[in-house]
């Protein structure tokens, strides 16, 4: 009973004072918090305008990147149309030779450039996917906090090396080593830049996949352990499938980068477009061709000048297709949790 009385005493002031809550500070000074808030508000009437202006500014910055993208796509399309006024679509897609520099018998068949790009990307994928996934599994499931703290920054450094450095690493370090195993390997080839592009994108796959795997809830992992699953079984059969959409996205993103990679293939890949599956001979990728023309002296308005836009358009379509593919895959394989 005594307790109840104390309770009702406590509540009485609140019931008694409706409206303004008055606090006594010291002996004399009295003020009302509500009153102070009102005063401040009336002074800051422009506050309302700021609230209205800021979203507009934010929208504007968002629009800038959208407009830039649209501008680039528009330029590409526009110049590509000019190119196809001079060279037929049929030739572009079916001719077996990319030989734009001939005065008399220029040939614009994109396939040799595509084959160069695909060879490098394929080799890069063979290198990067297994290493990247293995690293991600190790980091998220096995590594101690201390090991993770050491390895992750190193991976990030690897991702931050300028690609020109990778290019010379491929040309002056990887190629000579490979040539001691494969004597028929040319100085410029697809294999060496392919491997090095793979090394370059490995951290991307490892890091993004690790994020995807770490975000699988711990309770799911515990569920697997409680059934007697080993660490490996849990990692491969529960965590990996649960994170598959993120992992797929990381792989596709990394491969998009491999497709668009320029410096490594320009330095170590050579500049001989050829349509073949041979990885030991010199190649040219789409990006390397654009570099070659841009740094050369092709005059404005020549077919060669317009050809870089057509090739650029192809590159764009490739990466766009990859991105759509990534979205499709991640929707299809998404495992909700």
């Amino acid at each position, binding site marked *: 009973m005594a307790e109840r009385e104390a309770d009702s005493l406590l509540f009485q002031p609140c019931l008694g004072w409706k409206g303004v809550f008055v606090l006594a500070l010291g002996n004399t000074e009295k003020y009302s918090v509500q009153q102070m808030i009102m005063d401040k508000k009336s002074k800051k009437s422009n506050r309302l305008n700021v609230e209205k202006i800021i979203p507009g500014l934010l929208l504007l910055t968002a629009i800038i990147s959208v407009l830039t993208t649209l501008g680039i796509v528009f330029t590409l399309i526009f110049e590509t149309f000019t190119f196809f006024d001079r060279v037929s679509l049929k030739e572009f897609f079916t001719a077996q030779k990319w030989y734009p520099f001939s005065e008399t018998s220029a040939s614009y068949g994109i396939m040799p450039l595509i084959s160069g790009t695909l060879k490098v990307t394929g080799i890069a994928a063979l290198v990067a996917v297994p290493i990247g996934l293995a690293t991600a599994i190790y980091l998220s499931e096995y590594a101690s906090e201390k090991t993770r703290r050491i390895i992750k920054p190193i991976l990030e450094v690897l991702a931050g090396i300028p690609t020109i450095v990778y290019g010379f690493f491929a040309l002056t370090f990887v190629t000579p080593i490979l040539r001691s195993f494969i004597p028929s390997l040319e100085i410029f080839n697809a294999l060496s830049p392919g491997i090095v592009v793979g090394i370059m994108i490995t951290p991307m796959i490892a890091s993004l996949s690790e994020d995807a795997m770490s975000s699988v*809830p711990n*309770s*799911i992992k*515990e*569920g*697997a*352990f*409680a*059934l*007697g*699953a*080993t660490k490996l*079984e849990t990692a491969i*059969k*529960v965590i990996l*499938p*649960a994170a598959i959409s993120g992992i797929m996205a990381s792989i596709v993103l990394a491969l998009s980068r491999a497709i668009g990679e320029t410096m490594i293939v320009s330095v170590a890949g050579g500049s001989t477009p050829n349509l073949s599956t041979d990885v030991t001979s010199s190649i040219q990728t789409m990006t390397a061709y654009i570099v070659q023309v841009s740094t050369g002296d092709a005059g404005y308005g020549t077919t060669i000048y317009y050809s870089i836009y057509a090739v650029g358009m192809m590159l764009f379509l490739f990466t766009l297709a990859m991105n759509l593919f990534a979205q499709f895959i991640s929707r299809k394989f998404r*495992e*909700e*949790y």
Partner: protein
Amino acid sequence: MTAIQSITEKIKKDSKLMNKPIAEQKEHVYETSDLNLWYGENHALININLDITENEVTAIIGPSGCGKSTYIKTLNRMIELVPGVKTSGEIRYRGRNILDKSYKAEDLRTRVGMVFQKPNPFPKSIFENVAYGPKIHGIKNKKLLDEIVEKSLRGAAIWDEVKDRLNQNAYGLSGGQQQRLCIARCLAIEPDVILMDEPTSALDPISTLKVEELVQELKKEFSIIIVTHNMQQAARISDKTAFFLNGEVIEYKDTNTIFSNPTDKRTEDYITGRFG
């Protein structure tokens, strides 16, 4: 009517409903002797001595932080996943000390299943969830897996609700259904013991009732150890009850006795709701 009286009434009613046969000589599945456990410097379990009988429901009750979850997780060594855990003493499961390093945790967990506080189905189909356990232990035969899945889902009293959508994602089920699916997943490897760590704390009253009824069914075949913060639940479903407080076992007796006639003042205070 005082709280003790009302609980006693309930127990009398429940035990009539259950119509328990008098136990013949039952074996101990677990024998814990002088178990101590530390999280770093924090002494979480102090000199635990507890024997758990097979084919019974053993409830572990106590206020938050009393070590009841820690204890149950030690029984299948899930506690090892927490960094910095040290133990001393022995827990013998069917006669073998599971704290011995030579005892493989995976072997133990194949014999001792666990149901968690929050339903944690895998992000896979209902079928795959149940088939996962048998699959990782090498059972690949599709027809056999079909049988195991049906039997387990029936065992967990959820078959009728999910039989038409076995291939749908488990996360489409309600919380209560997910928990019974997790029980089915656990049954699929036919364990000897099932540990339940507050299995109904995230469920609504109706789902809770279903899980409780299920526990009564399951104890015919399995030994069940259930951690609960719900004393009525312990009174309703368990045969024996252990009361934990600050890492120690204060009292461990037949559920009827502990709720009607607790020896220790602290047990009485807890079950009558004076604290906790």
